[in-house]
């Protein structure tokens, strides 16, 4: 419950991709905020639009992507979607940094990592290359790479997966960013390394008060790391809430489905898992009405007709589901919802 203006405010983000077969809407009217020092997790299955959303923040999407004009992404009072490329470049890597899923391909294979870290510094700070190297060394130490002095000259292929991701984080931290976007930072790593990296992220967040947008499809990771959770399905946010609330009482059938389909580690295992039936619809052939209707166990007639809005639910979550919508302007208008609505204008 924060009253100050959020660090990042995404309003009605619509990122569309025109293709020869029609327009794909990987992100369709997504709104959320990230407060200072908050870790927000964006979860959802593959193809739900997590990466496109996160890349939209920095306008790094590849190809013929289009942001609809009514979308806005406010960062420190400025709309990133309307900034000139040159001004945006001053924000990238400086105020907002990113780390990606596969640290092998996200690092330039032909440059030593020291240079890659130093580059991030040199791009924004007026320092000598030597000083930049020194800062790089400090950063490597900070992200827990042993024998950092020697590693500065190593090429990415000479590092292990975990170390690469640490190096990637070092690059992201180079200019003390206010927001870190981490797109599946641990998916490519083993669990033991994953827990090291997640620990590191949490520590950094505590130490520097950075906000983190953590993208993942692993609910375990969410539960262990995030403050707040956004559940995404087919380009829309279907549920949003504090991490405790989401896990304690998920409201959307999709969120529920996700929870039960993970085999549990504690206690005796069930004979069969309660899997969500069917598959994610083809983005070009989304069903009318609610996107989840094709897989929803409790779909109603209404669900086939119109898409529900994201609305506040008594549990504290905000849900986009007809099951929980009792007409407009109903009772549950708590402060958070108001805050969000006002922030949207």
């Amino acid at each position, binding site marked *: 419950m924060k009253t100050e203006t959020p660090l990042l405010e995404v309003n009605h983000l619509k990122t569309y991709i025109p293709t020869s077969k029609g327009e794909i809407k990987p992100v369709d009217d997504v709104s959320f905020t990230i407060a200072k020092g908050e870790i927000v997790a964006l979860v959802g299955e593959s193809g739900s639009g997590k990466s496109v959303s996160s890349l939209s923040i*920095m306008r*790094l999407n*590849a190809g013929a992507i289009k942001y609809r004009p009514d979308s806005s992404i406010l960062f420190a009072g400025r709309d990133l979607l309307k900034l000139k*490329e*040159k001004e945006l*470049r*001053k*924000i*990238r*890597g*400086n105020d907002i*940094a*990113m780390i*990606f899923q*596969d640290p092998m*391909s*996200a*690092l*330039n*294979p*032909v*440059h*030593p990592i020291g240079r890659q870290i130093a*580059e*991030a510094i040199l*791009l*924004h700070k007026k320092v000598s290359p030597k000083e930049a190297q020194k800062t790089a060394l400090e950063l490597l130490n900070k992200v827990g790479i042993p024998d950092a002095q020697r590693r500065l000259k190593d*090429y990415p*292929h000479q590092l292990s997966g975990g170390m690469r991701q640490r190096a*990637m984080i070092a*690059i992201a931290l*180079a200019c003390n960013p206010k927001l870190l976007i981490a797109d599946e930072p641990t998916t490519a790593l083993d669990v033991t390394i994953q827990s090291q990296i997640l620990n590191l992220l949490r520590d950094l967040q505590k130490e520097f008060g950075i906000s983190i947008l953590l993208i993942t499809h692993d609910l375990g990771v969410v539960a262990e790391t995030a403050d707040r959770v956004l559940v995404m399905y087919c380009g829309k946010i279907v549920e949003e809430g504090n991490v405790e609330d989401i896990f304690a009482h998920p409201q959307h059938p999709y969120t529920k489905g996700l929870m039960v389909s993970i085999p549990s580690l504690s206690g005796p295992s069930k004979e069969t898992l309660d899997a969500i039936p069917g598959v994610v619809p083809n983005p070009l052939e989304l069903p009318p009405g609610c996107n989840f209707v094709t897989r929803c166990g409790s779909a109603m007639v209404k669900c086939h007709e119109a898409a529900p809005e994201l609305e506040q639910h008594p549990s504290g979550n905000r849900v986009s589901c007809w099951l929980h919508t009792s007409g407009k302007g109903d009772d549950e208008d708590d402060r958070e919802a108001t805050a969000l609505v006002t922030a949207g204008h």
Partner: protein
Amino acid sequence: MFLKFMLRRFLYVIPMLFITTLVVFSLILLIPGDPVLAILGENATYEKVAELRQQLGLDQPVIMQYIHWLNNAVHGDLGRSLFTGQLVGHAIQQHLAITIQLVAVGMTFAIAGGMFFAITSIYFPKSWMDYAARFLGTLGTAVPNFLCAMILIIIFSLNLNWLPATGFISITDGAGSFLKHILLPGFSLSLAGIAVITRQLRSSLMETMDAEYIRTAYAKGAGRYRAIFKHGLQNAMLPVVTTIGLLMGTMLGATVVVENIFAIPGMGQLVINAIGQRDFTVVQGVVLVMIVMVVVINFLTDIVYALLDPRIEY
């Protein structure tokens, strides 16, 4: 470590040279007709034929001829021309310098031109530069180099009279006249190379620019220029380096045509004459030297590759 790598690569070159010489040698054996009769012409008598045959070692079994030839070649003795009696090594020496200069200029044009067009095409996508580069990348491979040479001569020599239509001046005899003479043949030679490098570098650069580390660079706040030149190019050049090695062979082959049209007394001219005269010691010698050049260039490109790509393990 690096030295060891170079040594290993170098050792790998030896069997390759061996096989190549074997191929070349056996190829020339296929040639029908008797070189001795061709040399002696009108005056061939039985005794003279037998004598010359022995003199040239043609009476020995093929394998002995090869061993003999290879042994001599390794010691720098490529024999004498069947046609002129001149030392082949000597003839090659005089032509080699010319061809090396020509190919070096052709290579320079090809690499510089190819890189220029590929990079501008990527830098200004969908601009006229982009389309021009793409067009050139395709057209360059479609225009036979002799046609290109003819057109250049007609325009720049016969009509405008800016540049000489024939001949060659070595760079040691004056850079100015060297340039004047080499411009047209060098360009004719490089046209296909420019096209090939443009095509390949362009597509490789395009692929590279989609790579995630380029996105990382942008995420750091880098601009387009930096993304292309500092991050994309070195990676994109890797496959091109190999192509450049292969291009060398193509260009050496193309000297046959270009030297013919521009009347440049280089290796191409020498070999085409020798083929016409069935002067097979000269053919062997020239081809051997050309192969050695290609192999050396390939060796060098391997080294360059290893230097460009830190992932290569020495």
